[in-house]
């Protein structure tokens, strides 16, 4: 079911603005942001902390509404003026920053959950399929363990399997590897690249880590400090499949530097803005 189909999963973000209104003070998180993400593209979003990256992800996933603009998925409107909050659905799967495997279900039960509640498979079929997919991801031995019993790397891998079993059009990842050590992280990167090469699923990936962004992405979108707009788009022309040797190539270094220059400027602005707010 996870066929390599790169003709779906195109996201079109058009003039999106989001204004939060906590405590009666308007805070503009995203300002007139437009971005086209092609079907089967790995789009990495980087930017200073609190710049509104997660706001975009939440809007696509249907967790939060938008104030203005429209978001389309494969030409269908997810949210727009008539419907500020997108419906949540299994066509857009989120992998959360802190991990959200249900701790009271085993890894296999977690993976099987989606197809069962959607009525797509019987319980036995779903558990069976979950076992197969976990084995493909190299964690078949862990199928009957609870998330609390496995390492964070394995849990995150299982979470991606839980998303993939639903054959989503888009994977939305919000800094999924943030709290991991560099070694685990590099293994996670290779495993995600392997998943991508197999499924060609569109990936919307938020991160602070520029090397991660260049290593994984087709394009790296650098956002401005709040309110978020696209500042610069770095096209990553390193051919796929990529592996850890890519990390030492000159082109990789150049691209990281290019992205770094763009982000640094914004990070300084964000830092100063933060100081002013406190003062």
């Amino acid at each position, binding site marked *: 079911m996870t066929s390599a189909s790169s003709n779906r999963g195109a996201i079109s973000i058009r003039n999106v603005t989001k204004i939060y209104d906590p405590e009666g003070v308007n805070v503009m998180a995203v300002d007139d942001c437009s971005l086209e993400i092609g079907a089967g593209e790995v789009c990495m979003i980087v930017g200073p902390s609190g710049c509104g990256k997660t706001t975009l992800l939440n809007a696509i996933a249907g967790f939060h509404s938008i104030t203005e603009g429209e978001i389309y998925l494969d030409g269908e409107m997810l949210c727009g003026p008539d419907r500020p909050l997108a419906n949540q659905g*299994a066509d857009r799967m989120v992998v959360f920053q802190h991990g959200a495997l249900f701790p009271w279900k085993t890894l296999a039960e977690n993976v099987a959950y989606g197809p069962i509640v959607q009525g797509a498979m019987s319980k036995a079929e779903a558990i069976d399929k979950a076992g197969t997919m976990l084995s493909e991801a190299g964690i078949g031995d862990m199928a009957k363990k609870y998330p609390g019993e496995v390492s964070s790397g394995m849990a995150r891998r299982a979470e991606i399997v839980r998303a993939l079993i639903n054959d989503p059009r888009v994977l939305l990842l919000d800094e999924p590897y943030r709290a991991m050590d560099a070694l685990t992280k590099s293994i996670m990167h290779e495993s995600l690249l392997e998943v991508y090469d197999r499924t060609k699923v569109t990936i919307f990936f938020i991160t602070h880590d520029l090397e991660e962004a260049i290593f994984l992405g087709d394009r790296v979108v650098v956002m401005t400090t709040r309110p978020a707009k696209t500042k610069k788009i770095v096209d990553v022309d390193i051919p796929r499949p990529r592996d850890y040797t890519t990390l030492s190539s000159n082109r990789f270094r150049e691209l990281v530097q290019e992205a770094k220059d763009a982000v640094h400027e914004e990070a300084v602005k964000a830092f100063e803005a933060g100081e002013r707010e406190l003062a």
Partner: protein
Amino acid sequence: MTDTTSTTQTKKPPTGLTRTIYDWGTSLKSPTPYLMTFGIFLWIGAYYLFVEGWELPRFNKLPGPVEVITEFLNPDPDWGMSLFTAEFYDHVFVSCRRILIAFAIATGVGVPLGLFMGWSKTFRDYSFPILETLRPIPILAWVPLAILMFSGLETPVIYLATLASLFVTTLNTLLGVDSIDEEYFRAANCLGSKPHHVFMHIVVPGALPFIFTGLQISIGVAWFSLVAAEMVSGEFGLGYLIVDAYMNITYVIMVIAMLTLGFVGWLSSALVRIAGNRLMQWRVRALALEGR
């Protein structure tokens, strides 16, 4: 821990009786069981010295440990009550039966009530103010009302124990639902859950740790209220026995009844804890890895 190599676990952790024996073995190697035994004897020793040894003022009117234990184990008791008399078991049975009924009703009503209050904002808005107003009323203040409402002696007593237990269970269940991380709800919705799936797969299991903490407190509160109710308006039961013994100046029986209450109370909490651990294997296993 990294996940580079495939981790094939050939040796499975022991289960069942083997596991129990293993746990006992481990525990005997730690100082805990010895310290516990020593602690118990230390307290009984002090009790003996104060009451029967030195006969200190204020303590010398109380029955001492030797007197109590002798009476408790006496097949032909001087004061008419010991482990060998049917009457003792009648009282224990009556109290346990009342607790069982009260705890079952309180759990059966309180857990669903708390779950719905946590799950539905509307339902919470309807019911929370009433709950919070009734909850602080001390259980003894309900005694006259209970007697007015229910005929006989048995129902008011059970009613009071149920009520006290119900508030604790409901509140803890509600807090349990509140404690569930928002991301689990988001993930569940993302995965295509309908509201009843969210309730069964997220709300109920997510609230379980708090529910069982609540149930342990609630069974304690149930005993507390039951004994208070039995003392005020009861016939049979351990609370009644304590007051009755006091009235008849049979102080030894009073202490026997108190110790029995302590024991059955501890036993009932332990049963609730065992039930909780059985239902929450995911939690037990995760905590075990943290060495707890």
